[in-house]
Structures are given as structure tokens and as C-alpha cells.
């Protein structure tokens, strides 16, 4: 008997992927299974589309029109992700002068600019070294039409 070939090989399962298998819904009775079962992919979930980091995602509502140039209007809902690090030209919620504000954040070598998208509002300049921090980066905007 060739021992080596008889030996059971044990493979460790890989746990670090996050794939969900689609479920076939119709149970198997006698009769015809649904021809669609093989193509079943689960319904679309808006949450999965817009929420990448569930623990870090917060919703916020826009008040005012300083970002109207980008189509962001009063009442729109922002999907804000605190897990995403601020990057140059990101749309972000920042805490400035005692309130949350929505701006494009330009990160230049000697300063940070908070840029509105409406000529009626000024660009805010923040010197490097001040304790300014972006609260969260906006990933999606939910808009009622």
C-alpha cells in the first residue's frame, strides 16, 4: 500500500475574501424548476453600492447653496465616510468655526483651501499647522428629484 497517496490532504479555507453566493430561491419540488434559477444573482442593494465602510459611514443633510455649482443643493443627503483619508480635491465635511461645512478641499504644499462651488461665497484658507481636520469624505450624494 502506498501510504503517501492514501494520506488525506487538508487544505485550510481562505477566509479573507468577501464573496456572497447568490441563493436559489425556488425549492426543488417534483416538477419543473424555474428556468431563472441558474441566473439568480440576488437583488440590487443600494446600501452595498454607497456604503463601503458601514462602521464609518454617516449620513448628513445639506443646508445652503454654496456647492450648487456642483449640483449639490439644500436638502441633499451626503454619504460621508470617515474611514477614507482626505486627499487633494476631495469633497469633504469639515468642522470650521463651530459648524460642519461642505467644501472641496485643496491640499497645497503650504496651505489648505476650502473651496465652494458658488461665486457668492469666499474660499477659506487654512494655514498648515492649525488643528484643522476633515471630519469625513463625501462618497455619494442622495438627491430627490
Amino acid at each position: 500500500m502506498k501510504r503517501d497517496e492514501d494520506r488525506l490532504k487538508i487544505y485550510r479555507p481562505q477566509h479573507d475574501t468577501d464573496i456572497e453566493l447568490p441563493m436559489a430561491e425556488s425549492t426543488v419540488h417534483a416538477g419543473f424548476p424555474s428556468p431563472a434559477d441558474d441566473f439568480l444573482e440576488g437583488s440590487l442593494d443600494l446600501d452595498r453600492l454607497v456604503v463601503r465602510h458601514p462602521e464609518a459611514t454617516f449620513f448628513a443633510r445639506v443646508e445652503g447653496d454654496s456647492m450648487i455649482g456642483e449640483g449639490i443643493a439644500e436638502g441633499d443627503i451626503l454619504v460621508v465616510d470617515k474611514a477614507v483619508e482626505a486627499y487633494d480635491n476631495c469633497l469633504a465635511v469639515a468642522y470650521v468655526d463651530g459648524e460642519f461645512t461642505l467644501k472641496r478641499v485643496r491640499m497645497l504644499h503650504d496651505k489648505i483651501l476650502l473651496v465652494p462651488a458658488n461665486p457668492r461665497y469666499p474660499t477659506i484658507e487654512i494655514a498648515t499647522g492649525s488643528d484643522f481636520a476633515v471630519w469625513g469624505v463625501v462618497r455619494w450624494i442622495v438627491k430627490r428629484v
Partner: protein
Amino acid sequence: MYGLCDCNNFYASCERVFDPSLEGRPVIVLSNNDGCVIARSNEAKRLGIGMGEPYFKLSQTIRQHGVNVFSANFALYGDMSRRVMSLLSRIAPAIEVYSIDEAFLDLRGIDPKKLDRLGHTAADTVRRYTGIPVSIGIAPTKTLAKIASKLCKRYPKLDGCCYMYRQEDIEKVLRKYPIGDVWGVGARWERMLLRCGVATAWDFTQMPPEWVRRHMSLVGLRMWKELHAEACIDFENNHPAKKRIATTRSFDRPASTLDELHQRIAQYAAACAEKLRRQHGLCGEITVFIMTDRFKEGAPQCCRSRLVKLSVATSSTLEIVGHAVALLKSMFSSGFAYTRAGVILSDIRSDDASQQDLFDTADRTKHDRLMTAVDALNAGFGRHTVGIASEGREPFRMNRNHLSPKYTTDWEQIIRVKAH
């Protein structure tokens, strides 16, 4: 190795996430009905505001130091807690949620050389994702992990994680660690140990185990072993179902008639029953208590509580309210201004193992179906849509004069961002 992750001043930190101007300023959070202090930021602790201190006694300190006051916003704290726990459970192989702001991490089987890094990553991730600062202690036992996490809070230089595993490090820490701060040492044991000259955790580890066993039973011996780095407190993977469920409130104005108390007790009992069903439990004991304001000098004082043991465990609102009200009636006496009351369910077990009683007269399946329907209606249409008649129509409003918005659980109350 075991980890303990503790959120720093959790309730105050939750408020700060959504109001960053509170950073560096004293914050306190009040109990239900704004009765007393249940959480304090470090700045508030430094002002000498004590845990449990009645709110009305603090007005001067609050005015003088500009203390920010919040009514407990449990919808918010619960949601933030869920986020923290969810992150931890992704980072550690298993976690045991110990309370709203604490979880044990099961780190057995992980290369000890990687643990310092893992702890810091966990602390940093929770902080970045949720805005909540945490202190993680990692050590050979749960009891030592708790101590490590406390250390981490005391020394900001540790940057969120304290990994304590070398024998000499542990000894150094225990020599300075007050015995009263050790997990499991209550006021009674602390007094007894201090009398015997045991002032620090180290002193305790130097006592002979037979002495510990004799004076502090097996529980004390287990603690002694845990401090000697011998793990003996099990890891519970699943949230252990609550062993007691309570709904207790201070009233906004005193109640002196049976009628007034009757309605309140019925409401609290109904709330308890709902919580009980949510965890699929049955209770075997119901306690009701009523008390007057113990801070009011000169007023006649009365504090009563009474317990009933049920022959058949139940989770039915009808039965629980019925028993609670009967208890109230049996002990009520007039002539007192009651300011606090509560209902406590205990002897809780899972609802799959109820034993049948020969003398049971209630139609249990019918009750079960009714209760499922009541819970569904209240979940769909808001609290207090359906209740039983003795709960009264209007819930007694809790005083919550300093409540922050439910930023994460109500679309109408989400963060407002200015675009102007």
C-alpha cells in the same frame, strides 16, 4: 493572550463625535430623566464631579466652569457601540461584548510578537472609523488585560494599546495597582483586604491561596490565579443573554397616589417584557420597588421592594404587568411623595426550555401569538402604539432637557452640514 477594549468616557465621546467643539471641554451625561451623572469627560472628572452625583446639586459647578450637559441619548450610544464592536470583531478572531463600551478580545493562537501591532491597529481603526477613542489592554488573562487597559488610559503615551506580558512588567504594574481597582473586587472585599494590609494587587498575589480561598471563596481564588497570569475566566463567544432586565425611572414630579404609581409600574413592566421577548427569554421572578427622594431632608421616607417567584416562567406582557401591579398594591402605603420606581425581571432563561406547570392556567400559545402581534405593531408604528389598558394612554414623559439629536438612527435628525 486576551485583550480588553474599553471606550474612553464613551457617552461623552459619542457626543463629541457629532459636536467637535466639545473637545477639551468638560462634558457630563445624565441618567434617564436627568437624575444624576452617569458619564464624565476627563475635564469634568478633574472638576471633581462624581459618578452618580445628583444633577440638581451641580448647578453652580456647571455655571462656573461652563460644563456641557447632555441627557442620555441611548439611541446614539447604542448605534456607536454597535459600530465599535463590529470593527473589533473584524480585527480580533473573536470578541465577547462585555458592556455597551467594553469588549474582550480572544487573541489566543496569534503570534505574540504581532499583538502589539494588532492592538495599536485596532485602536487606531476604531478611532478613525468612528471617532471614538479606545484603550486596549493585552495580557495573559482577562483580569490582567483589564488592568493593562486602565494603564493605557492613564498614560496617553501608550497611544491606545498597552501590551503587558513579561513577568517583570506585570509585577511592576501590580505593585502600584490599588486592590480596589482590580476587576471583581467590590467595596466589601476592598475594605476587608485593606484591613488585612492588602493595599495593592501585588500584595494580594502574595497572600497564600488557602487564605484567599477561605476568605473570598472560589471567586477570589480565581481572581488570585488570574493575577498570577493563569487564565481561568472563560471566554464567552456569544453575547450572554442578560440575567436581569430592569426599567427604573426617577419621576419629574413626585407621585403619591396608588393610581399614579399603578400606571407607571404597568408601563415599566411592559417595557421590561418587551426587552425580555427581544432576547427570547422567560423570567421566573419579578421585583417591584418604589421609593421617596432620599436627598430631601425632613420629608417622610419610604423605600419598599417586593419580589414574586412565578411557578411558570413567562414573557407575556399581560402576565408580567399583572404580577407587577399586584406587587405594587400589596406594598403601597399612602402619605409619601414617591420619586422613583422600577420593575426588575430576574431568573431569566431562554424561552425554549420553559417547564410546564400542572397549575398553569394561562393559555400560553395564545399569549405568545398576541405578544408577537403587539411587538410587531409597536415596531412598525412606534412605541406605545399598542399596549394594555393599565399602561395608560400617554407615557409619562421623561425629563430629557439636554438631549442631542439621534444623529445615526433618525433621518430627520442626521448631521446638518452648512453650505454657506
